[in-house]
C-alpha cells in the first residue's frame, strides 16, 4: 500500500539507493575480479603496467595463445595435489557437522525442556565459551596433544572443532526447541512413552528445519576454520585453508602465485553454491538468535 508520499523520489531515497549500489559493488567486485583473473597468467593478474591487462589478458595471449588459461588450476589441483587437501576438508567437515548436530540436538532439547536453574547456568557458560578466542584454546591443547601422540591427525581436529562449535549449536537448537510446543512430547509421555521415546518419535520428525539451519553454520565453522587446522594438523593431513596459506609461504616464484589464486577460487566455489541454495536458511539462522531476543 505505497502512498504517493512513500513512492516519491526524495534526495534521501536517492542517496540510500546510491549507498546500497556502492556497497553491492564493493561486496561483489573482489570476487568477480579474482575469479576472472584466475584464468590469466600472473603478469596479467598482478599487472603493474596496466590493470586493463587483467581484463583483456594481453600477456596470457602472448604466453599461452589464448585469452584464458587453466594453468593455475592445473598447477594447484594436479601438480600441488590440492584435491588431497579437499578430501581432508571433506572428512573434517562431514564428521564435525554430524557429531556437532547429534550432541547439539540432545543438549538443546534437554535445555529447552528443563526448567532447572542450572540449565540457565549451562547456557551462560556456553556464552562465555563462545567468546574465547580459538587461538587461546589451541595453546591449551598443543602440549598435551604432543605428549599423548595425537597431534597432526584428523580425528583430533574433528573433536576439537565439534567442541568449539558446541556453544553456538546449543544456543541455536535450544531456542529452536523452545518454539516447538511442549504439549507435543508431553502428550506422548502421557500415552506411556519415556522421555527418550517421546524425543525419538515426536520431536525428531519435526526438528529438521532447525537442524538444517544449525548444520549450515556448523559446516561454515568447520570449512572456514584456519586457526585450529593450522596448529593441529601435520602437513600430510592439511585441509584446504592451511594449504592455501602454505602455498603463499613457499610459492613466491613467478607463476606459482596463480596456483594460490586458483586454489582460493576453488575454495570459495562450494560456499557460493551453498549461498545459492540455502540463502533463506542462512538468513533465518543469522537472525534467529537476535529477533527472538
Amino acid at each position, binding site marked *: 500500500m505505497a502512498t504517493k508520499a512513500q513512492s516519491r523520489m526524495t534526495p534521501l531515497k536517492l542517496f*540510500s539507493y546510491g549507498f546500497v549500489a556502492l556497497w553491492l559493488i564493493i561486496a561483489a567486485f573482489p570476487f568477480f575480479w579474482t575469479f576472472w583473473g584466475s584464468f590469466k597468467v600472473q603478469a596479467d593478474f598482478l599487472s603493474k603496467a596496466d590493470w586493463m591487462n587483467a581484463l583483456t589478458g594481453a600477456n596470457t595471449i602472448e604466453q599461452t595463445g589464448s585469452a584464458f588459461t587453466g594453468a593455475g588450476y592445473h598447477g594447484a589441483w594436479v601438480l600441488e595435489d590440492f584435491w588431497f587437501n579437499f578430501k581432508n576438508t571433506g572428512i573434517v567437515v562431514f564428521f564435525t557437522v554430524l557429531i556437532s548436530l547429534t550432541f547439539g540436538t*540432545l543438549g538443546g532439547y534437554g535445555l529447552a525442556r528443563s526448567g532447572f536453574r542450572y540449565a540457565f547456568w549451562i547456557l551462560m557458560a556456553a556464552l*562465555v565459551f563462545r567468546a574465547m578466542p580459538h*587461538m587461546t584454546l589451541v595453546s591449551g591443547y598443543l602440549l598435551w596433544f604432543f605428549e599423548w601422540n595425537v597431534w597432526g591427525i584428523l580425528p583430533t581436529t574433528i573433536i576439537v572443532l565439534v567442541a568449539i562449535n558446541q556453544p553456538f549449536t546449543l544456543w541455536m537448537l535450544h531456542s529452536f526447541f523452545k518454539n516447538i510446543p511442549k504439549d507435543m512430547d508431553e502428550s506422548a509421555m502421557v500415552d506411556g512413552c519415556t*522421555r527418550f521415546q517421546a524425543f525419538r518419535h515426536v520431536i525428531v520428525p519435526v526438528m529438521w528445519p532447525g537442524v538444517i539451519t544449525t548444520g549450515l553454520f556448523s559446516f561454515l565453522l568447520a570449512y572456514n576454520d584456519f586457526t585450529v587446522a593450522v596448529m593441529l594438523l601435520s602437513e600430510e593431513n592439511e585441509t584446504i*585453508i592451511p594449504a592455501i*596459506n602454505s602455498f603463499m609461504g613457499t610459492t613466491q616464484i613467478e607463476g606459482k602465485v596463480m596456483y594460490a589464486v586458483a586454489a582460493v577460487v576453488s575454495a*570459495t566455489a562450494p560456499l557460493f553454491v551453498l549461498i545459492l541454495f540455502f540463502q533463506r536458511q542462512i*538468513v533465518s539462522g543469522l537472525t534467529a538468535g*537476535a529477533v527472538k531476543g
Partner: protein
Amino acid sequence: MKHRTFFWFILPTLSAMILFIALPIVSVFIQSLFVEHEQVLLVSESCGPFGCTPTTTVDTEATAKLQEEQPLGRFNGLGTYINRSHLAFAEIGEAWANSDSFGDFWAQVYNLPFYSALTFTLAYTFIVTPLVLALGLAIAVGVNNLPRALKGVAIFISLLPFLVTPLVGSLILFWMVDGDGVIGATIQRVFNDPSLSLKASTALTWTMLMVYGVWHTLPFSFITFYAGLQTVPDDTMEAAQIDGATKWQRLIHVIVPHLMPLVSFVTLMLIMDNFRVFEPIVSFKAEAHAQSLSWIIYNDLRESGNPLYASAGATSLITIILAVILMSPVLVRTWRDFTRKSH
C-alpha cells in the same frame, strides 16, 4: 524433566565443552606458571699443546631427558606474566620515570610486544564495531526501500563477503591492494609514487586491516537489522507520519529505538569476533606493523621445534580475562533478565 534424564541429554555436549574448552583454559594457566628448561651444559677441559681451555657444550641427551621427564618445564610462578614480553611492569615503571611527556611514555610502552598487540586488537575492535553497526543500519534501510525483486539479489551478494573464509577473503583483497594489484597500482599512479605501498606504513596497514574487517562483518549487521526492520509496526510509523515527522525523524525516533535490542545483540557478536582478529594479519603479511593478541600467541606456538608454551599460555590467559571483561555488561544484563523472569 527429571534430573537423571536431563543429565543423559546434556552429557555429550557438556563433556565436549568441559574437555576441550574449560580444561584447556586451566591448562593454559598451568602452562603459564612454568618456563622452558635451560639446556644442560657440560664443561670439559680440552688440552692441547698450548695448555688447557675449558669448553662448554650442550648435553643434548640430558636436555632431551629432562624435557621428557618434565614436559611443562621448570616452575616459574607468575614470572612469565611480568616479563618483558607480557605485562612488563618493570619496563613500564622505567618508561614512566624516564619519559618527560605522555607521548614519549606511550611510545616506549607501544614498543613492548604485548602492549602493541593489545593496542591494535582493541583499536580494531572499537573502530570496526561502530562502523559496522552504523553502515549496516544504513544499508538495511536502503535495501528495505528497494523493489521486491531486487531485495533477494542484494542479500545474496551481501552474504558473499561474510561467509567467505576469513583467510581467503583477506587474500582476495590482499592481491588487489598489493603493489602490483589493481587498487594498489592505481593508487601508486594517482599519487605518482611507484614506491608507495599500503604495507609500508603502520597507519596504512591498520586502515587496510580495518577496511577488510568492515567489509567482512558488515553483512551480518545489515541482515540482522534488515530482519528487524520487517517487524517495525506500521501503525507507529503511520502515526509518526501523520504527526508530521520527516523520513529522517522517523528513522531516528521510531526505527532506531525499535531496533535497540538487536543493536546490543549485534554489538556483542561483533565484539566477540573482532577481538579474536587473526587471519587477516596472516593473509596481508601485516605482522611488521600490526599484531593482534591471537597473532602473538600463534607466533609463540609456531617457534619451530620448540614452542614457547609458557609465553603463549600467559598471553592466552590475559586474553581470556579481557574477553570476559569485554562481554561482562551483556552477561550481567542476561542474568538480570533471567532473575526477573523467574520471579
